[in-house]
């Protein structure tokens, strides 16, 4: 086995030095009846060439990966500058452990400190942690944190939060006695319904909204913060499309108390939905209630600046069952990639890419809305995703668009909402040239025109 430095002869010598006859004696402390007396029935060992050929063959069956695509809904196609993937492949970053020994981990620690700073700048918050697994688990942790901060058990959430995020929150809070109220979406605007907000009361720990929400609509966070704060609840804002931070007013500037976001848009490949990276930020006064690792500035005896993991008394390895979370391993390398992305794009790049997404989506929405039989059901402002309503079942239409026109036209909302058979969610980013958008529009026209001729 080429990954094992010691040759069989060297290992035999080492065994003899230990007074052992064979490798089997290494396991003498395991009761004999528990030893596996046969080889594992896993695939036979193969060479590098064979492995790559086999994996290429599997990957080739993922035909969706090769098509122009308008899928978003929590995972987004964005261009990642070449330096991002190159730099994260430096051994010093990707083969290092969690930076528990600061003297020989300053590279990782400084990068995390920069990550925390950038997350604060983009979200408009005071303090951010070193990352969560993803946006969905970050949201679950935010709900649990709101319960700790307010000592209240009721949570009111918009039903226009990503359905899989809500499922994850349901799983996390199921043993906490949290009363989870879902507020309907206004069918005219696509925003959280105003009447639904009346369920906020003095037992409410938090109001949870996503913006842009799952239907792509931009919520009025200022107003929602006022409503939440009026009853002493926290406003938790979830963001699945982090590129929107370059265009929309930050949740922090609108009064949010906790912001969680999926950071995959910052240069991270789709990779069938993982690894992703959760951004988690809050106000200074709640810092000690945060889940996850934090890096802080520190000085040595000579007064030299460095960085260390800090406020560890919140964490499981010190506080055990009283910890603010059970999280240990987070998404370090993905957070690093996001950091490199944010710094490479910089102040102007993050704004330009966001503006391009908004412009291209506006163009696409206008073109689709002009198609006969199509409409845009929601009136609220949008960033780079919009719901289109087709004259036919969206699932079949998109399947035909894929097979006949080689375009993944978006997500049929029937996957999550049985009552929206004709609606589909279209996402447009800087990676979709105008020609692709036009081909999408033409394809939709073609397929529905033929349909109505029949």
């Amino acid at each position: 086995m080429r990954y094992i430095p010691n040759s069989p002869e060297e290992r035999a010598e080492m065994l003899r030095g230990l007074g052992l006859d064979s490798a089997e004696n290494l396991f003498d402390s395991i009761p004999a009846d528990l030893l596996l007396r046969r080889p594992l029935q896993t695939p036979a060992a193969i060479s590098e060439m064979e492995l790559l050929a086999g994996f290429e063959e599997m990957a080739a069956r993922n035909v969706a990966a090769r098509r122009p695509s308008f899928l978003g809904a929590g995972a987004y196609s964005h261009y990642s500058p070449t330096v991002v993937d190159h730099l994260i492949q430096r051994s010093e970053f990707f083969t290092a452990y969690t930076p528990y020994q600061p003297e020989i981990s300053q590279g990782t620690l400084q990068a995390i400190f920069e990550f925390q700073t950038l997350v604060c700048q983009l979200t408009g918050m005071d303090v951010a942690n070193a990352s969560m697994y993803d946006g969905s688990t970050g949201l679950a942790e935010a709900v649990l944190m709101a319960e700790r901060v307010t000592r209240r058990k009721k949570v009111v959430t918009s039903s226009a939060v990503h359905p899989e995020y809500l499922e994850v929150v349901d799983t996390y809070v199921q043993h906490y006695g949290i009363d989870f109220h879902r507020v309907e979406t206004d069918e005219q605007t696509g925003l959280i319904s105003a009447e639904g907000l009346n369920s906020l009361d003095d037992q409410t720990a938090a109001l949870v909204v996503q913006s842009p929400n799952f239907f792509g609509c931009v919520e009025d966070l200022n107003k929602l913060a006022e409503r939440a704060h009026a009853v002493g609840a926290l406003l938790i804002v979830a963001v699945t499309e982090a590129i929107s931070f370059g265009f929309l007013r930050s949740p922090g500037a609108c009064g949010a108390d906790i912001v969680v976001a999926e950071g995959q848009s910052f240069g991270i490949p789709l990779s069938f939905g993982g690894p992703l990276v959760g951004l988690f930020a809050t106000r200074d006064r709640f810092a000690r209630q945060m889940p996850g690792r934090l890096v802080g500035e520190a000085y040595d005896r000579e007064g030299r600046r460095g960085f260390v993991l800090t406020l560890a008394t919140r964490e499981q390895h010190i506080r055990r069952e009283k910890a603010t979370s059970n999280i240990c391993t987070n998404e370090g390398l993905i957070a690093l990639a996001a950091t490199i992305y944010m710094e490479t794009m910089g102040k102007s790049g993050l704004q330009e890419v966001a503006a391009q997404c908004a412009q291209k989506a506006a163009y696409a929405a206008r073109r689709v809305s002009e198609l006969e039989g199509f409409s845009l059901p929601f009136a609220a402002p949008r960033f780079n995703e919009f719901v289109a309503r087709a004259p036919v079942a969206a699932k079949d239409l998109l399947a035909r668009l894929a097979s006949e026109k080689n375009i993944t036209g978006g997500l049929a909302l029937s996957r999550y909402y049985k009552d929206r058979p004709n609606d589909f969610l279209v996402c447009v980013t800087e990676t979709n040239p105008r020609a692709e958008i036009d081909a999408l529009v033409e394809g939709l026209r073609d397929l529905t025109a033929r349909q109505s001729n029949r």
Partner: protein
Amino acid sequence: MTQSTNITKAAPHITQNEALIFERSQTGRQGYRLPPLDVDETPLDEIVPAALRRDDDLEGVPEVSEVDVVRHFTRISTWNYSIDLGMYPLGSCTMKYNSRLNEKAARIPGFSNLHPLAPEEDAQGALRLIYELEQALSEITGLAGVSLQPAAGAHGEMTGIMIIRAFIDARDGEGASANRRVMLIPDSAHGTNPASAHLSGFTVKTIRSTADGFTDLGHLRELCASGDVAGLMLTNPNTLGLFEKNIKEICRIVHDAGGLVYMDGANMNALVGVARPGDMGVDVIHLNLHKTFSTPHGGGGPGCGPCCCTKELEPFLPVPRVARDGDNYSLDFDRPQSIGRVKAFFGNFGMMVRALAYIQTHGPDGLREATEAAVLNARYVAAGLVSDYDKPFDAQPMHEVVFTDKRQSRKGVHTLDIAKRLIDYGFHPMTIYFPLIVQGAMLIEPTESVGRQELDQFVSAMRAIAREAVEDPDTVLNAPHSTRIGRLDEAAAARKPVLRWKPKQAATAA
């Protein structure tokens, strides 16, 4: 002077200084270029009203060139120790070699460009990969059901404990199961165990370890007698590096008391191909693909923490699951007893690609060979250090071994000092002060990825430090001496935490 052939592991060299990127930023620098916008522009106010748009020009976000970025990260990277520099003997962390082949495999565009919500028929390769990895992990653990959805070890643990809770709720009925809310955890366990149990609504009771480092069966029986035990969380080999030789009896006691046994799979690198948790009586286990199956730790993640369980518990695994029908793979969402979803989409797929590549590269013999080599290396280090350091347990260790600072502390030299001094000898320190039940613990796990010469260098370094502790303790107490910075004042950092950079004026105004 004759040239020395006895090369020690490290020598100091110049490293580059590098400020925070924010301190490097210069107005007007750019590190990117996008194609020009190719659609007719819509007035911004028609897209989103000004009141909802950002108006701070992303204040504070840096402006740097591509060259600045590359130098910045290359420079700070050189301040890190890493597996590729050598032995990284963190106990219970399994810092083994991370193959470049696996990195290449995960970056095949058909995997990396695949959207998680792509239609199933257009993502057959990814679903097959998940299915095949599940099959392999099922065979390795001897447990029928596998979910790859959890993103890390603690996440897999939480999933496993929620499965136990769901099973007991279904078996006993909600009313009766409410009286069964105790999770037993040994005092040697990792801190994530009690934290995960708490998340699942359990009360934690601690089981003592015996003086020779095993679960105290008498105490276990006593705790199980109360009738409120839902389960036991056990690491095996335990965090002292010892195989729990009474594991079958332990499982029997818990099962007889109506509970289930969860095994923390952090230490599976001692067992792959040699013994299987399912054969021991374990009901549910999590694995760490970022330990045993070599997916890179990445300076703190990403991980992947598959949850494997018995046939009986399979209906409770997270939703969705991948189903196979001939050559066709599909997602099964219709699982009414499932604990629910623990993560959006399907988990850390990129890590699954790497882990399957590891399994296929090794093959059955290679997997066992890696286990043997890992245990052999640990035994070799144990034998090399026993003359100079206190080894608190007599039993032969598996893949990791615990020593203490008992002898050195008589001279005022403690585990932390030994760890820091080891840095000067060119090694990453071992895990220190864990497990908590061993005073001054030093938990050493070499893994199979270290050759004999480097093991010898490690043993020599440790023995040299033991000598220094007697002859020149100040050198050890003030270590490290060779790093860019000395020991940082962590207490001060926690008292007045500075958790982000701020511009100078803003910092003084605040």
